[in-house]
């Protein structure tokens, strides 16, 4: 944990873990686009919501992973800022905006996560563990429609966040492979995978939000 390289390796591993999670999340949400009145989506969501392995093992690991990643991100950002004691008056180095501003895209994702928890996770926890309501296996699809249909502000905030998420992932994916010493970050195949993955995640989630915004 002391060494800068170990910190970056852990940053990369937690990021890679979160990228797998996002893929799984997108795959499940895409089923809400199937024209079967949400049957498939409800079935999978219900399974995920009530399966003890998912709820009591995978979910805590996920929450730990997110917290670990953003806390480590803040630590690295602090140390890296401290390493440059004085700013240049004229600075013009050759590197991309995205790569230099992972903290900004990251903090936007964090703010988005707060909103996302407020929208979906807190109501679910209340429903399941505080009010002990009987499980309604069709509520998931309704809730999705309720939150997005005609809800301009929420849909817009989600879409903007997904764009910034895509930017974070575009640099993050190739960077993480370099951090763990597997492939140079500019490797052509790796860059291709990073482009496909980041555009796919970003556009996929945007498509779902926009679909439910317009279609009741």
């Amino acid at each position, binding site marked *: 944990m002391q*060494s*800068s390289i170990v910190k970056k390796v852990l940053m990369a591993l937690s990021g890679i873990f979160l990228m797998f999670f996002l893929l799984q999340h997108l795959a499940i949400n895409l089923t809400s686009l199937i024209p079967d009145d949400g049957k498939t989506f409800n079935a999978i969501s219900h399974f995920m919501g009530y399966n003890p392995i998912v709820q009591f093992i995978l979910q805590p690991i996920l929450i730990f992973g997110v917290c670990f990643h953003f806390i480590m991100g803040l630590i690295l950002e602090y140390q890296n800022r*401290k*390493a*440059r004691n004085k700013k*240049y008056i004229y600075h013009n180095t*050759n*590197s991309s905006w995205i790569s230099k501003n992972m903290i900004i895209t990251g903090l936007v994702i964090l703010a988005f996560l707060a909103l996302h928890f407020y929208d979906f996770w807190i109501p679910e926890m209340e429903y399941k563990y505080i009010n002990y309501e009987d499980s309604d296996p069709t509520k998931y699809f309704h809730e999705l429609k309720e939150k997005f249909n005609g809800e301009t502000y929420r849909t817009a905030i989600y879409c903007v966040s997904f764009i910034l998420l895509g930017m974070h992932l575009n640099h993050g994916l190739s960077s993480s492979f370099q951090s763990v010493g597997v492939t140079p970050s*500019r490797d052509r195949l790796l860059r291709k995978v990073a482009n496909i993955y980041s555009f796919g995640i970003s556009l996929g989630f945007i498509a779902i939000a926009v679909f439910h915004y317009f279609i009741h």
Partner: protein
Amino acid sequence: MDLLLKIWRQKNSTEKGGVQNYRIKNIEPDMSFLEMLDVLNQQLINEGDDPIAFDHDCREGICGSCSLVINGAPHGPDKGTTTCQLHMRKFKSGDTIYIEPFRSSSFPVIKDLVVDRSAFDRIQQAGGYVSINTSGNTVDANATPIPKPDADEAFKSAACIGCGACVAACKNSSAMLFVGAKVSQYAHLPQGKVERKERVINMVEQMDKEGFGSCTNTGACEAHCPKDISLDNIMRLNQEYLKSKIL
């Protein structure tokens, strides 16, 4: 050429510095950037002013002494070129040129444009060498055959002159390109294999101790390195470090 120079002046390491303007006339386009500064300094000396301190030695791009951040770019606008090899023909008459020291908490300013880069020496001393038995049984380096591709890769990394432009360019002031180059250079050669583990662990430990930042893979170091040291060296550094820690 007539130029307006905006140069960082700072009396010593403790005093707060600032930018001062200097107008300079009749500069030849074929002069090097440092010769242009020599002309300015002569002018300052003639006027009884304190000349501007800047580092230089070989003036042919091999020693790694010269530095300067010129218009925001370490070693100036030319790719793969040290400041001493930069020519004034890269600028136009009437240009304004900002000249600042390399910035890093680990490279404190000594005076004006001169910074203390001894942190690099200490990293080098922590493992950037191969121990050779000099008791009379020394094996000639050329007696050990090395595959050409390995020798080429080692040579590419060995081209690093330790100037510190990578640190100056990086938003994190990371020294990973420098350390990566030094570690890779030996990792490719059989002579480097013996001390392989201690080398990378000790050099990284010293690098962290000196306060350099970590690598966010922005690629600014590679873009401004006068010797075109590739970012791949950082990947290899990470790899060597993990191998040494885990295996």
